């Protein structure tokens, strides 16, 4: 019996060339002692087939941004402002039933821990089947075939046999592949990947990243990649957004960001990560001490006045501490929120 043909990328619902358009997204958490914004006025556009990386450390709001887009924000949080458009269609305006129809279908998400993201009591194949049947009008046998096809697409050897395995029978890398298969089974327009390789061994990480890039090109999926690893960003993304304390602090094409980081936080991040030296030249350049960013991220419930990074910033002056810098285009396509972009430290 001939395999079910790929439907190809689904037709656009209308609207511009952007797969995902996020504008001024704001997500607030309501606690007894008060409220704070985990995501504060975040905007970006994701073009079709493009990879945008959201970079930052824990608590910066990158995961919460993803969850806000998917409308999966946990209590006591809520999206309270902004718009999110998936190929022109506003996601925040939909009711829950309509949103469910889109999740896993036109916009999918994969998470860091493949073990807990897969149901341990169902076979891998049946979980993909379920995802397929939910969003596409296929018979059981057709769905099963599609599931096996997806497993083949993510380069799992012996996919038909593996489809009958349970998650615990697969290695970490295989499970992540299965997750990717499930997420891409309906050929979504947007794939959100939240630290997809952080929990994997480095050789497996390389395989998975390679796979994701290949699939992205083949299926034309736009990818929002969330990570803290600058190496992963450099190798996979075309554009990068750097987040700190729930806000965007810098945004640029990947080459521009690494060549000329404007915001002191971006600079600090890059300088504090040891770089793997693989040539004699690298070795002679290697610094003795890693550059530190002093202090720690302030609690979101009590952010300082003015620029949120000022308390830790080597360039901060009184204006920084009083007024929050505007987010501006400093160079073509390169945005930052800083009063002293690209400068060396003061004093």
């Amino acid at each position, binding site marked *: 019996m001939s395999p079910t043909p790929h439907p190809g990328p689904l037709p656009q619902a209308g609207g511009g060339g952007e797969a995902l358009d996020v504008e001024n997204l704001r997500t607030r*958490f309501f*606690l*007894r*002692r008060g409220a*704070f914004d*985990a995501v504060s006025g975040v905007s970006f556009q994701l073009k079709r087939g493009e990879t945008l990386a959201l970079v930052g450390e824990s*608590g910066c709001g990158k995961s919460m941004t993803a969850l806000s887009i998917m409308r999966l924000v946990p209590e006591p*949080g809520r999206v309270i402002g902004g718009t999110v458009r998936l190929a022109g269609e506003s996601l925040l305006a939909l009711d829950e039933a309509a949103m469910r129809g889109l999740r896993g279908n036109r916009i999918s998400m994969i998470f860091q821990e493949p073990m807990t993201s897969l149901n341990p009591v169902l076979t891998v194949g049946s979980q993909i089947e379920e995802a397929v049947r939910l969003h596409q009008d296929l018979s059981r046998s057709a769905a099963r075939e599609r599931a096996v096809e997806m497993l083949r697409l993510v380069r799992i050897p012996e996919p038909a046999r593996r489809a009958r395995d349970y998650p615990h029978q697969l290695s970490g890398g295989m499970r992540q592949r299965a997750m990717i298969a499930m997420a891409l089974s309906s050929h979504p327009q947007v794939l959100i990947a939240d630290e997809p390789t952080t929990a994997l061994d480095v050789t497996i990480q390389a395989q998975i990243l390679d796979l994701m890039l290949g699939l992205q090109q083949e299926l034309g999926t736009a990818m929002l990649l969330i990570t803290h690893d600058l190496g992963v960003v450099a190798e996979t993304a075309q554009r990068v957004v750097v987040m700190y304390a729930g806000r965007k602090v810098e945004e640029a094409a990947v080459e521009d960001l690494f060549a000329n980081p404007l915001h002191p936080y971006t600079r600090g991040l890059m300088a504090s990560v040891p770089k793997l030296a693989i040539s004699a030249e690298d070795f002679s350049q290697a610094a003795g001490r890693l550059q530190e960013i002093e202090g720690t991220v302030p*609690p*979101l*419930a009590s952010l300082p006045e003015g620029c949120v990074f000022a308390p830790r910033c080597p360039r901060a002056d009184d204006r920084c501490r009083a007024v929050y810098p505007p987010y501006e285009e400093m160079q073509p396509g390169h945005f930052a929120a800083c009063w002293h972009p690209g400068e060396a430290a003061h004093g």
Partner: protein
Amino acid sequence: MASLAERRVDLAREGFWSRTGFLIRRYPLGAAGALIMVVFVLSAAFAPWITEFDPLSTNSRLSLAPPSLEHWMGADFMGRDIYSRIVYGARVSLAVGVGSTALGCAIGVVVGLLSGYLGGWVDLAVQRVSDILQALPLLVLALVMSASLGPSLRNTIIAISIPLIPYAARVIRANTLAVRELAFVEAARAVGMSELRIAVRHVLPNTIAPLIVLATAQLGSAILTEASLSFLGLGVPEPYPSWGRMLSESAAEYVRTAPWLVIFPGLAISLAVFGTNLLGDALRDVLDPRQRA
């Protein structure tokens, strides 16, 4: 996002009254349960001051007197003031309840800790004995113990504590197994501490929290068991007034002619057990999510 741990610290830093107010608003049922228990405890403590009559003195002229302004709950067949007997009975119920729960938990903690920490055949043996004890219904076990020890306050406390031991041991053992694997236990070993010290100073304090919930729930069960034992003629003997014995003495004969002999002791038992259950449930809600944090 403020973690649960941070929230706990916030709560700890606020004043006592605002903390209490917050807890009452959040857990009204638990607050009601706590209130009931407080009333019982205070009644028991201040019994001489809140009663007029001696619970033991008989007065045949008052026999079966219905509730009146003088005798709020009436008098029983021997003319004893029921209200006083209820209040003094609270002492017995609480003494047995708290005593047996405390004793059972204390032994249970030791057994559970040893069992969970040492593992191996010690654990195996203890678990099987526990299984046997738990296979018998609480009341049956208490009955057997009480019958063999003979009725007295002390023996009642012991008898009721024994069925509690396996429950407490189970909870402590489960937690011990979990805590034992945590890094700080291994770190303590690396520092060179003896196993005994590790078990007592590091593992034990981290396993006790869920026991509080268990103990509160068991308190109600203990009170009920004491009432049952006394009802059956075992348990607490004369002269201590016991709600259970009050029921047994009057239930069959007087329930239709003088229902107040039955209603008030019955109410007292029900209310006490109800109160501990409410409190226990609320405590579990308050403590559990934080334990997982």
